[in-house]
């Protein structure tokens, strides 16, 4: 007989947290998910990774295919219903769960969506405000001189994420973030937008990259892989030397893996 799947990867210690990895971290940057798990454990949480997870349904939803998005939302709600907390290393996916599932669904499913929304948090919000992570005893092994931060739009406006990543970077790594001039302006990713309207998106990501470069920072961090893939991809195209990383990697000091878009 086969051994049943064990969803719990770490021994019980405190808050039971289910990690919603997000499809972009799953596919493109597993280091984000591993760093998230370590950070949550450092904050005293018992972390599980539900094995049924795939995608939160944003591509279909944002493209107006609500009919396809509904069953995906229901799948995520069912999968995560038993967790005490759900943590998502992306403002846009957390925003989807917290704000858009209740809009998309009706009746009982809407109620269940609201229940899930109440216990779902973006990673930096959870670490900073809920779990109140303490700095680890090890000194930061890397000396990073200056980091710019990109606020993803959904995180910024749907979830009010602004101070949390900055406070964490300060507290855990001693980093003061260099602020962008136009930090409230979208980077031009927008899910399928960047592929449907590439020229406009290209102009927007150029503006964002120029803003980042103008800070003089050597690294750009952010909480949303979609934005980061977009900005890193443009930097690579133009040959600009800026290291782009998810904030979780930076907080966990996992800086040996090549940055986004960089070779081995």
């Amino acid at each position, binding site marked *: 007989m086969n*051994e049943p799947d064990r969803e719990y990867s770490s021994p019980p210690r405190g808050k039971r947290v289910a990690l919603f990895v997000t499809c972009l971290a799953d596919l493109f940057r*597993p280091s984000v998910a591993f760093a998230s798990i370590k950070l949550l454990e450092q904050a005293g949480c018992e972390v599980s990774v539900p094995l049924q997870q795939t995608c939160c349904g944003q591509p279909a939803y944002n493209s107006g295919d609500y009919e396809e998005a509904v069953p995906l939302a229901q799948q995520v709600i069912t999968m995560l219903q038993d967790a005490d907390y759900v943590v998502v290393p992306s403002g846009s996916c957390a925003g989807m769960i917290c704000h858009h599932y209740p809009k998309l669904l009706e009746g009982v499913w809407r109620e269940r969506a609201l229940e899930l929304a109440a216990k779902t948090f973006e990673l930096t919000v959870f670490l900073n405000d809920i779990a109140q992570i303490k700095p680890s005893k090890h000194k930061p092994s890397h000396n990073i001189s200056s980091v710019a931060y990109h606020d993803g739009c959904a995180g910024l*406006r749907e979830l009010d994420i602004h101070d949390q990543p900055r406070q964490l970077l300060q507290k855990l790594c001693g980093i003061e973030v260099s602020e962008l001039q136009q930090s409230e302006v979208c980077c031009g990713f927008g899910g399928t937008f960047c592929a*449907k309207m590439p020229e406009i998106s290209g102009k927007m990501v150029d503006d964002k990259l120029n803003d980042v470069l103008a800070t003089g920072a050597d690294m750009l961090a952010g909480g949303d892989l979609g934005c980061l893939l977009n900005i890193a*991809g443009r930097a690579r195209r133009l040959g600009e030397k800026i290291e782009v990383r998810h904030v979780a990697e930076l907080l966990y000091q996992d800086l040996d893996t090549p940055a986004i878009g960089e070779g081995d």
Partner: protein
Amino acid sequence: MEQHSETFLDNASAALKNSAQAERRDVIAAFAPLIRSAAIEGFDEFDNLRKHIKRVRQHSLDHLEYYLGQFEYQAVQNGNHVHFARNSDELNSTVLDICQQHDAKRIAKGKSMVTEETGLNAFLQSAGLEVMETDLGEYIIQQAGETPSHIVAPALHKSADEIRELFQSKHDLGPRELPETVDLVSEARDILREHFLQAEVGIIGANALIAENGYSMLVTNEGNGDLCANLPRVLIVCTTIDRVLPLAQDATAMLRLLVRSATGQAQTCYTSFYSGPRRESDLDGPIETHFVLLDNKRSDILASDYREMLECIRCGACLNHCPIYSSVGGHAYGWVYPGPMGSILTPLLTSLEQSSALPNACTSCGRCAEVCPADIPLPDMLRDLRHEENSQKLSAGRWRLGLKVHAWLARHPKLYHALTGLAISTLHLFGHKRGSFVRLPMAGGWTSQRDFPAPQGKTFMQQHQARLKRIARQQNEH
């Protein structure tokens, strides 16, 4: 107005290639949000007033028929004529009839997006009338033969140099330098002044109609609206049915949000209320006044899921804060109303088929909704329009199919993990050395502008499941 929304992507592409205009748009995009936030920072009532106006607008729309009736009654009591126009043709021919009854040849016109919508100028001109726009921005684009690029600042796309060149070629005033902006303004003022005095009919728009007293309210910064309204013998106010508000205090409350959101002022230079024709004791003013109230699908919108769009107060803040509007400019949208509000209104007032690109010109960044003084959920409405496009199969078939396949796969986790695992391993194999792809099949949209970052290696799920198996094996061994 003729519509070119179908070619939005081509229009946008051309706009992006005009680097002088694109640079100017960048300057404005950095500047406009600052003046708005400065105006709102010291104004503690903003949020409460926004909630209040939302309720007022909802109430007005819920009882639109009642308040329109009350407005009509009061306006007629004041000596006005009130006309209702179901569509653009009816508005245009009503206005022409009035002009012809008075044997008018010259029209002085204030800024009105509604008459841009109906194409009134072209219609009157084809009937032999001379129509002069008197808002400076509108005057400039009329001389240039262009259309507005912004609902508040119609000539936003033109530089002072372009305007100087335009005036020098259009105004027969001999050689002159016009070195400063103020010289341009005063030249236009001299020419317009003459026209105000000669015009037999004045046409203006309205920011609100007040049901309780039958007045219309208009804000301008140039005072041209008042000259259009008071100097010619006949005044025609053209607006839409959704502008009606129950009380005068509702209109003034709205004003406090509108002006701050639009231009960052606490008040415009001129705020005027028009009651009707001159009375016996009045020394001046028009002898006859008309309201022409246009529906043009507003009733349909009222009955639809998009009724909140009728709460829009036309401040232009969503344009000023939209990164797509500021990237491509207003003309790319191909009709009267650009930016987020225009991407919703255009499909509703024309057709979704003709303007199917517009609801897609949005990254759902939410900045428009954040600043909207009418608290309209613009990104949600744009997405709902994309839902309609999807249901009506107006969007590209390959996108619809691609997203369906993705969603189907995502509902089958085991298969999803197996297939994505395979695809990601392949991408990693070919991409890990350089770290990103310059070109990739089926990702042409992405790679036309940027490299495609290569995945790190195996997917997280592959690694995680392998780890779980390893743990299970170790436990079995003990």
